[in-house]
Each structure stands twice: as structure tokens, then as C-alpha cells.
């Protein structure tokens, strides 16, 4: 078995299984915790309307614009780039199609039902995302607030996020060369590592975001407090 065979075969399967089990463990572990019923008389009975905070908090309030602009811009840039390349770069969509076909038995129409990005656009987005990630890292190192509150999780999560982007870019650049398979194997290994780290650290915010914003939104809406 070659390294590439391992990375996209048992390696990927193990990483996926680890991701699913640990993510489930963490989410279910939290969901099962006690949550006392609030017995106070609500100001707003339709507290569920506070769920709008999930969307609202995607952009800072007018009063807070400016102070957090750098974090917002770099954050959005690398998230958008990363997700666009992940879901719409042709080799990725082919892989997803294979996986989904295997799971559902249906045939996914690549390039038809599922939009894809031209290779040049995907490459540009990857470079921009990497630049934004680098800027975010430098900001974390030089900004006194971020430097103080950062820990291993922050830096390792950065590495785990940047590595697939960087190795993916390398693999794309060297398509057709003698290094193609090795680079693709390294890329897949970094993806596997990302999948395994994801439920262990702060990358879980991809899920927790909805829970935290939703919880605050509902609790605050009930009181009529500012959200």
C-alpha cells in the first residue's frame, strides 16, 4: 500500500470515524447537561425569536465597528476562501460525489447540480486564504490582547487549518509532475490530521457558534435585553 493509498483509504476512514465519534461525544456531552427552567415571568413570550442572533452576530453592531475590523476581515476572508475551495474545487467535488454515491447509491451530477470553481479561481482563493491566515497569525502574535489570551489550541488549530490549504496548493501546482502523488498524499494526510484535531480543540466553534449565539439570543430575548 502506497502512502497515497493509505491517506485516502484507511487513513481517511479512520480520521472521519474519529471526527464523527469525538464530535458527537463533545456535542452530546454538552446537550445532556442540566439546564434549569427559567421561572421568571418573561417580558417576551416568543423567546425563540432571539434565534435571530445566530444571523445578527455575524456582523458587529454599528457601535463596535472599527475596533475589531482587522479580525473580522481576516476571519471572513480565510473562512470564505477555505469553504469555497473545500466545497467547489473540482477534485474535491469529485471526492464528495464518490463518497455520497457510495452512501446513497445515487449518482451526483458534477458540474451540473453542483457548481464548481475554475482552477484559477480556486488557486487565487487558496492564496488569498493563506495570506489572510498568515495575517491572522501575525496579529495574534503582535496584538497584546490576542497574545495574552492565546494558548496551544489557537496555534495548533491555525497550523491544522493552514496545512491542508498549503499542501493542497502545492499538490495543484505540481499536477503532472513526478511529485504529484507524494504531494497529494501529504495533502490528504494534512486533511486527515485536520479532521482528527477538529473535535479536540477550538475548531469545534463551527458547531458551537450556533449553540452559543442561539442560547444567548433566546435567553436575552426572553428578558427583552439588548442582543
Amino acid at each position: 500500500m502506497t502512502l497515497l493509498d493509505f491517506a485516502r483509504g484507511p487513513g481517511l476512514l479512520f480520521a472521519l470515524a474519529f471526527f464523527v465519534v469525538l464530535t458527537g461525544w463533545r456535542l452530546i456531552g454538552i446537550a445532556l447537561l442540566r439546564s434549569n427552567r427559567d421561572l421568571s415571568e418573561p417580558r417576551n413570550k416568543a423567546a425563540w425569536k432571539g434565534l435571530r442572533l445566530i444571523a445578527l452576530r455575524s456582523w458587529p453592531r454599528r457601535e463596535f465597528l472599527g475596533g475589531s475590523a482587522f479580525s473580522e476581515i481576516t476571519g471572513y476572508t480565510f473562512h470564505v476562501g477555505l469553504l469555497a475551495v473545500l466545497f467547489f474545487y473540482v477534485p474535491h467535488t469529485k471526492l464528495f460525489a464518490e463518497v455520497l454515491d457510495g452512501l446513497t447509491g445515487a449518482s451526483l451530477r458534477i458540474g451540473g447540480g453542483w457548481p464548481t470553481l475554475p482552477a484559477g479561481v480556486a488557486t487565487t482563493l487558496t492564496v488569498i486564504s493563506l495570506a489572510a491566515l498568515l495575517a491572522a497569525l501575525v496579529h495574534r502574535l503582535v496584538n497584546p490582547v490576542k497574545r495574552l489570551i492565546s494558548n496551544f489550541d489557537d496555534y495548533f488549530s491555525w497550523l491544522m487549518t493552514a496545512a491542508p490549504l498549503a499542501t493542497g496548493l502545492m499538490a495543484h501546482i505540481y499536477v503532472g509532475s513526478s511529485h504529484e502523488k507524494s504531494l497529494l498524499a501529504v495533502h490528504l494526510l494534512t486533511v486527515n490530521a485536520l479532521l482528527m484535531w477538529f473535535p479536540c480543540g477550538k475548531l469545534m466553534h463551527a458547531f458551537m457558534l450556533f449553540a452559543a449565539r442561539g442560547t444567548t439570543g433566546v435567553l436575552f430575548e426572553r428578558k427583552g435585553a439588548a442582543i
Partner: protein
Amino acid sequence: MNAPITPREEQHPLELDRPRVSVRVPIVRVDKQGTLSDRERVERAMRSFVADFGRTSAIYLESCIHCGMCAEACHFYEVTQDPEYTPIWKLEPFKQAYKREFGPLAPVFRALNLKAAVTAGQLEQWQHLIYDSCTVCGRCSLICPMGIDIAGLISQARHGMFQAGLVPHELWAVAERAAREGSPLGATPAVFKDRLEWLADDHEVEIPLDKPHADVLCTMSSIEIMKYPESVVATAKVMNHLGLVWTFRSDGYEATNFGLLSGNTAWQKQLTLKLIEAAIACGAKLLVLPECGHAYGALRWMGANLYGKPLPFRVVHISEFLAEHVRDGSLKLRKLAKSVTFHDPCQVSRRGGATEAPREVLQALGVELREMYPTKGTNWCCGGGGGVVAIHRADALRHKVFELKMKQIDATEAELPVTSCANCRQTFDDGQAHFHWHKTMHSLLELVADQLAEPAP
């Protein structure tokens, strides 16, 4: 340093003749209560932290991405640019305890020592961040991109600090006095009764006390009773003007809750239950809370949860009460030809939801309302909430924060700054004296009482 063995009155004498009321500047600070060993302090704190961790706090503590944006919303960071005042950093021992002792991955964190155990030294070091430099104003909760209610977590962290015997000298002293005497500032039932008699005579106003049956139970804060007794008179004038069957009760008048501010849940419950039981005893349908920010949170939003069932009466802040009566036309007011700016008390407005009520009242007064920027939910805190105003060693920092508030108010060029929280008011009085500022904070309630229209002949 452990407490010297002297009577409590000698240890913590009150200081009621200054712009802000508290205990006197301690000759020797006692910021560590009891004679517990370091290990016992940590164990107690951990037990309390773990007892407080539930689904909501777990969601919050699992969500932080260390973006640091919360610093931008904190007045203490804003005026110092000191990263230590980053709100989420103030919770570091609490977060550490969660990861190591409670979270879904806690066994891994412990087994591999990936998260260090919280130490007594760390807790002592954090006392300054959890008490002196956090007014629990909740402004940070509005900027957090994850929506984490950091202020709510600070209140929980204070529970553990209290159990560990690590509460700032003044805060512990007034909280202990409140639990012992029923009031943090010496407004005992006898003092309260005496004051009511004196105020009723002086102002020729009827102030009922201990009516066996009343529709409305009014409450006061100790700051009002001891420092702003005009607020007691104003309450009586408004209630009498409305022709309500109302009363004060000597078994439940003190709405201040230093149990909440210091982090002692037992004392918090004891003080809350006094009010609830007094309201039930006189069959009140409505309990009116005074111009006090944290008193509103303590009873309006936490009271029923401590009581264990929904309250059999409504609870409103005095500004909400006034607004309701403006709305139904029963509160007749003379116009006031002044320009006014309104300072939102954090616990009533931002975190309590009663943001528009005072503005409705000001509109009824016919004043020209000049809003600060920012205002309402994102208004800057005065710097004295959460018990901070009582802590002497926090004065220099609090005054820096107050400069921010002065600038904000001066920019409106309004004639009268007005608020509906006596704690904010005393913070303003103290700031005014410190900076020789030309503005004096006014009480919304007192403004209303002064402008009551004469009853129709």
C-alpha cells in the same frame, strides 16, 4: 492576611458621609476570609465552579475562539489598553477549571495534564480581575462573535471566589453585614422605620409602613435609604398621587443584594426571599423595585428561580412602573423645560430589558432628550456597578473609567444627566467630587415626583 480577631464593627466601620457610601478605607486590607489552607480554598472554588457548570455555561466555555474582540467593548480595557482587562481573560481560571474538571474531554486533559490545575495563587491574582475590574455590565456580551454571555460567567466565577474566601475586603464586609443585619449599609428595620417617620414629618407626606394588606409593595435600596432619602419621599409622593393601596414593609424593604455581588448564593437567596415573603404576607399584586440596577436583576430575573416557583405577584422596576402609569394616563406631570441625557443602568437596560421605559417617562416630562453615543443597550457603564464602587483599591481605575462617561455626557451638552439607579448615581457623585465636574446626576424618580401635577379640584 487572615482577619484579625476584633469585633466586626471595628473591623468594618461604615463610611456614610462621603460621595460614595461603603466601609471606611481599611487600615489593613483583609481580602482573604477565614483560615483555610491554599488547598482547601482551591477545592472549595472548584466544587463551586463545577456545581455552576450547566448546559449554558458549557456551551459558552466550549465556544470561545480567543479572538479578543470582547476587549474592545470593556470600559476598563478601553481606558487603560491593558490586555489583562480583556473580559474573557478575567475568566481564565474558570475556563481552566471547566476544561480540566468538567468538560467532555476533561479526563483527557487531566490524564495528560494538558490543562494545568487552578492554584490558590492564581485565584488570588484573579480577584482583582473578577471583582475590581468587572462591573458585570455585559457590554462584552454584545460584541462577542460567538454570542458568549461573559458577564453571566463572571457572576458564576464569583460564587467560587466567595467559597474560597477570596472576596475583596469591602465587598465581603458589606455582604456579611447585609446577611447579618438585613442591609449592607446599616439600614436596619429600626433605622428604616426611624427614617420613614422623620421623612414623613419633614416632607408632610404619608409613608405607610407595615400595612397588613396592600396592592403594591414598594422597596428601596440601602443607598437611597442612607444617602438619598429624597427617593423614599419621591416614592411615597408618586404612590399617593396615584391613589394606590401601597406600603413599605419592615420585614422586606431592602432590595440591595450584596449576596449577588459578592458571590454568596445563600446570602443572595436569603435577601431575595425576604422581599418575596413580605410581598406574599401583605397580599401584594405588584412589587416595585427601586432605582437600583442589580436589585432589578436579583429579583426580576433571578427571584423566581431562587424561590423555586413563579412569583405570585408582578415585579417591576420603578421606571417601568412610572412608564405604565404615564401610558394609562394616571400619572399627570407638569412639563420640565430642560434638556436631559439619560444614563442607562446596565442591569436595568442592557441586561434587564427596561430600556424604553425611562425614555417614555422623560417624554411625558416634556424634556428635550439628548441621547449619548453610544446609548441604550451599548451605553458605557459608569464604572461603579457589580460592587466595584465599594472597593477602595479600585478607585483609581474606576475614576479612569468615569472620565469616559464624563466625555460622553459632556458631548450631549444636555443640562441634566438623569439615571434610574442609585448605585450609578453615587458613582457619578463620587466622580463629580473627584474631578470637580460641573454636572450632577439626577434621579428619574425624584424628577417625576417634583413634577407631579396637582390633583384636579
